[in-house]
């Protein structure tokens, strides 16, 4: 049962927080106890995850499989949930955010935890049904979370749009999965894999895969299924946006990895051109869209669309490098994204979360400005930061398959992205503030989180041991 411990603890933690809310919640609406439960619990789960053996696999009843790769994904999910919880701190504190104070903290935390459990299910699935249930478990809570500003029209609009688009994509996915089932006659990965190897040219299979690709493209914000992203990222509360941009993307990647390098491995070589076209289109659209965004959450939406493009490009790589490079990149991407969102939270305390909120940062708060600069550089992929190593591996995965033109195209795209990431730095260091603003300040939680994230970006960029470990497990 050892390998199942994180999953069990996660459910227990969710139940604990929900139980606390039922028992005490109505008495003390502003209590911070659930918050402390949540982050402490997630830290504990992370520690447990780190101490598990990564070279063992265990199959539990009901087709629940734990492997080294799935544990790595669980690390990403737990860290992401942890930083979302930490990020949400100031949004639940009265006066912590200009847009308004979120309420029902225990519900928020419970939903985050249960959503994360859905993601755990995706990486542990061994049949299509569990896979589908997992992805839905991780999707539906996000629709609720996006509308968590219950009086804010923008937030409700985001929630509605997200749900509508999500419904379509769920439909497509079920459609696709049913084709796969129809072709193979079974929902287990084992049977599907056997069928794929025997009949790789079966048209039903291809049809099913393409439907699934379109459906997961929604979650992964692949062009042209990405269009919800800017509106939802902008409308949802910032911690939710951060969670969507990291966890939801990570689970979609996990889903694709599970299929492409699992039961559908025999189709992988046929799918590579499609994957590359989607990757190229996605990174271009994301980068073009981000060029002139003033609103930072929208900006992050486009930025993460572009990042999704780089990630799927690596899925054209072989199993070992494709898997390990993508997982490493998810860590790197999560660190940089959360760092940006923590800075957003600092801007949002007294102003709109807009780029102009960064003005004068270089003078008022040089440490925060330096963190912003490092983060922007990491997102743009400049050495020696983690983002550089991450992109290096992604590009290497595609290059190893001989897709040099694609790598060049991605590198050019990366240059475009440097432009708008540098705009952030320019705003913080060069542009003089037009109006007097309060200097940006961090509270204790934000300070420690940013410290950890920055350290991670630096260490993962300089020290090779982290990427080496991931290669060893997933490669």
């Amino acid at each position: 049962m050892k390998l199942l411990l994180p999953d069990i603890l996660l459910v227990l933690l969710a139940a604990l927080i929900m139980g606390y809310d039922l028992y005490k919640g109505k008495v003390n609406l502003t209590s911070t106890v659930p918050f402390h439960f949540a982050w402490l619990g997630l830290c504990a789960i992370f520690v447990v995850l780190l101490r598990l053996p990564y070279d063992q696999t265990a199959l539990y009843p009901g087709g629940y499989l734990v492997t080294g790769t799935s544990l790595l994904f669980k690390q990403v999910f737990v860290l992401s949930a942890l930083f979302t919880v930490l990020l949400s701190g100031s949004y639940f504190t009265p006066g912590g955010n200009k847009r308004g104070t979120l309420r029902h903290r225990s519900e928020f935390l419970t939903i985050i935890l249960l959503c994360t459990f859905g993601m755990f299910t995706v990486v542990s699935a061994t049949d299509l049904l569990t896979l589908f249930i997992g992805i839905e478990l991780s999707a539906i809570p996000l629709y609720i979370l996006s509308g968590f500003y219950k009086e804010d029209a923008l937030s409700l609009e985001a929630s509605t749009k997200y749900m509508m688009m999500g419904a379509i994509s769920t439909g497509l996915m079920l459609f696709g999965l049913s084709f796969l089932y129809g072709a193979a006659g079974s929902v287990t990965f084992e049977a599907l894999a056997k069928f794929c190897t025997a009949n790789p040219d079966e048209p039903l299979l291809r049809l099913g895969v393409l439907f699934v690709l379109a459906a997961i493209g929604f979650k992964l914000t692949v062009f042209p299924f990405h269009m919800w992203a800017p509106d939802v990222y902008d409308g949802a509360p910032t911690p939710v946006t951060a969670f969507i941009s990291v966890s939801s993307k990570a689970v979609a990647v996990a889903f694709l990895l599970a299929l492409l390098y699992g039961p559908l491995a025999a189709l992988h070589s046929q799918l590579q051109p499609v994957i590359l076209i989607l990757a190229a289109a996605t990174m271009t659209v994301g980068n073009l869209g981000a060029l002139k965004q003033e609103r930072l959450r929208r900006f992050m939406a486009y930025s993460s669309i572009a990042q999704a493009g780089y990630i799927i490009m690596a899925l054209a790589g072989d199993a070992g490098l494709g898997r390990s490079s993508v997982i490493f990149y998810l860590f790197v991407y999560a660190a940089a994204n959360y760092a940006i969102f923590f800075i957003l939270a600092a801007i949002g305390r007294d102003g709109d979360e807009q780029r102009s909120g960064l003005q004068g940062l270089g003078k008022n708060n040089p440490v925060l400005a330096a963190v912003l600069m490092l983060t922007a550089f990491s997102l743009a992929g400049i050495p020696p930061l983690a983002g550089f190593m991450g992109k290096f591996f992604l590009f290497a995965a595609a290059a190893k398959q001989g897709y040099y033109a694609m790598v060049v195209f991605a590198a050019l795209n990366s240059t475009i992205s440097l432009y708008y990431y540098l705009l952030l730095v320019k705003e913080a260091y060069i542009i003089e503030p037009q109006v007097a603003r309060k200097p940006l300040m961090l509270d204790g939680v934000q300070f420690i989180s940013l410290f950890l994230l920055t350290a991670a970006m630096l260490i993962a960029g300089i020290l090779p041991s982290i990427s080496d470990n991931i290669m060893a497990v997933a490669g």
Partner: protein
Amino acid sequence: MADFILFNSYLILLFPLFSFAIIGLGHINSDNKFVAKFAIAMSSLSLGYALLTTLAYLSQPKHTLLAYDAAWLNFAPGLTANLGMYLDPISVMMLVVVTVISLLVNIYSVGYMKGDRSFNRFFALLALFSFSMLGLVTSGNILQMFVFWELVGVSSYSLIGFWYEKPSAVAASKKAFIVTRFADAFFLLGILLVSFYSQTFSFQELNSPSTALLLKDAGVLTLGTLLIFAGGWGKSAMFPLHVWLPDAMEGPTPVSSIIHSATMVVAGVYLTARMFPLFAASETTLFVIQCIGAFTALFAAVIAITQMDIKRILAFSTLSQLGYMIFSLGAAKVCADGGGHHGADVNPLGFSAAMYHVFTHAFFKCMLFLGAGAVIHAVHSNDILKMGGLKQLMPKTYWSLLAACLAIAGVFPLSGFWSKDAILLAALQSGHTVTFLVGLITGGLTAFYMFRFFFLIFHGEARSHLHHVHEDPWMTWPIVALTVPTIFAGLLEHSFVAQVLPPHLGETGHFAHPAWLPWLATLVAMTGIGCAWLLYGEGKTEKAAALQKAFGPVHTVVQNKFYVDEVYLFITHKIIFNCVAAPIKWFDRNVVDGTMNLCGWLLQVGGKGVRLVQNGELHLYLGATVVGLIVLLFLGK
């Protein structure tokens, strides 16, 4: 315990890096006193750990070890760049030298930079400089070394141009950066060439005899090693790339001190020593190294005689001493016709003597610069004609600098005597008589110009009006502290000669040890000092002026540094700027910029398009999904 200390030896680098990050990011506007204390504390910790590492290194039997090693960049299967801590006699020696000098310069700077409005920035950059140099000397592979090599370049650039309000400082920093970068381009080419054929970056493998054989068979040994040496050529300011070093004194004096003693210029010598076994495989390479070194030694010493600027004299003296180190490495190759029958083709003394001179020179040259800084601080001028008579006013500086001048002149029993003697002996043993004579004569010139410098500053009457000259304790004590190694480093001669040896040394053979050499060297040095005493001993310039008149045009040519700078200016401004740069500029302005602007415009239009489609209407999004699905199905067919 020793293993633990060695494994964590990267801490030596991390302390200054930490100091740079903390001061540079968090405390650029903080209280000066705090910053000074913090910088000194970090520097002391770094020194402390360097000493611990030295002890741990000496307590274990291995000659070379990689204390820490991890794969860093995996370029291609079989070609991986690692990150490592490479410990061998020369890197351990450099760790001690760099950390000692860095600590003393930090302490000294508290006094020297007092009241400067960029006090904190100075300490941050100084820490970065130490970090870069420490990283350079402990690099386990040539690529890692190149990274730190460039970091040294960048940090020296920002320190030389520290007072960037002064146009001359900006010009000097640009000059230093451009000249060294010019040389580094060849270095990088060399790295590419050598690693392409040898499939490795690691020093251990590059220096192995099999790599030398491999490169020789491919016919790139000489070219590759010369290209790599070109990097050291620029950094160590060998003729004709020496032009940046005299100008680099535009930085604050503590910077000159650290550049000239422990960091930057020594990097070139260090690189040559690091790659010595590979260089030694090519006769041509070592011959070039030897000629360049010997020529620079003499050339710079001649110029130093005529200079009037206190720091310029020292700058040319550094050039000359670097020439010694470089030619000593080159002279380690035993001359084929002269003394070729010793049973070996490499004389290890050339290598150890060069490293020994790096060691002794670091201390006395650092002290000379710090002393010069103290004098400048007191007199507010760089011109030695405006000084004089400072003996009574600055007694501690006087006696300390006397020791340093005696050491650099090579007077028994101070440190410089031993290392210079070892270099001359190495040249003589290997049969390079011309180089030996050049070294001997340069020794005499060195003694002369150093004592000209010394007498004009301290002896006789003050030649300008001095008011309230005093010795700042922050500045004086580091100077006094440096007298200890300046005087006593000679005691280490035996261990250097016995232990600091290049790896993969075959037969060492037996070399003669003429007993007359120390006497001759001392005689030459004494003659130099004697001449200086006759001309300047009373702190007067009349006799020298008469002599100067007699030489007339020769003196003018020498005083203008043989017009090398003017030649450079002519080549760059007249030829390169007009014939090459102008057409390229036109091309860049019109064709390249035009294309780039077109790209930018296209991208902006594309961005506008993306944002236009994103109009917030849900039915459009749903429609896009459906169309996307259809296209996808079509694509995947």
